[in-house]
């Protein structure tokens, strides 16, 4: 096991937790990305859009700042010029995946952050169930795609 990657994962996770606590302490909101951004683009609740927009700006600037000033900190090191790892598939696969992610988190009222972090921390039964279902469904999907169809995504 790669202990360095695991430790950096733990530190990154603590940052994510601090973000969730910060959002609850200052604004009383759940730090669920699909809810924060989904409502920004589909509903625009009156008087409630500005912080959602600045949240998105912060979310995008985090990885950029780490690449610019992080000096190789974290699990993104060693990819000069790239903030992110390469997408694993082409445009058509990502269109299908994106639609499923949007539809699924919209219908299911949350994603890995809203259900998987904030919901589990609140010991919410709905979030526990949702997190269990999307983890199993994702694991089965990867198993089918990689080991049964062997299309190597």
């Amino acid at each position, binding site marked *: 096991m790669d202990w360095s990657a695991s430790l950096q994962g733990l530190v990154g*996770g603590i940052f994510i937790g601090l973000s969730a606590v910060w959002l609850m302490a200052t604004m009383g909101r759940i730090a669920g990305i699909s809810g924060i951004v989904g409502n920004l683009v589909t509903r625009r609740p009156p*008087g409630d859009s500005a912080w959602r927009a600045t949240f998105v700006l912060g*979310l995008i600037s*985090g990885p950029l700042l780490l690449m610019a000033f992080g000096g190789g900190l974290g699990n993104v090191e060693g990819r000069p010029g790239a903030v992110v790892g390469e997408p694993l598939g082409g445009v058509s696969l990502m269109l299908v995946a994106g639609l499923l992610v*949007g539809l699924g*988190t919209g219908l*299911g009222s949350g994603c890995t952050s809203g259900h998987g972090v904030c919901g589990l921390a609140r010991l919410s039964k709905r979030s526990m169930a949702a997190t269990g279902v999307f983890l199993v469904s994702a694991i089965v999907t990867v198993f089918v795609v990689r080991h049964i169809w062997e299309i190597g995504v």
Partner: protein
Amino acid sequence: MNAAAMRTVMGYIAGLLFGLGLALAGMTDPARVVGFLDIAGAWDPTLMFVLGGAVVTTFIGYRLVFRRTRPLFDEAFQLPTRRDLDAKLLGGAALFGIGWGLSGYCPGPAIASVGGMTPPLAAMLIAMVAGWFVARRYAG
């Protein structure tokens, strides 16, 4: 500054902490995420540490925060009140899991990766927003 202006600043800081966390953890790298989901392959446990660190931090932090009667810059805590399990919740979670497994992107990392935009990522983001519109229309 008034409360609304403070909320825009607090929102940025929350987003920044989240984006830094995702990048530090390596969650903006889809290969690492799929490596975690691929339990029959060369399993990468990093995501377990990320989730663990985030959930434990939030669990402790929420308990401190909820000692107050209201948040610092808003009127009330806005917490989900539903307790029931229904087909929409579980079906939605199942669809999300398929999309997550196919791409290695859940919504946070997909949006946090905008700074490294590629055509497949743009396709992912556009389709994800379309999915939110469809879900909102279908689900009311």
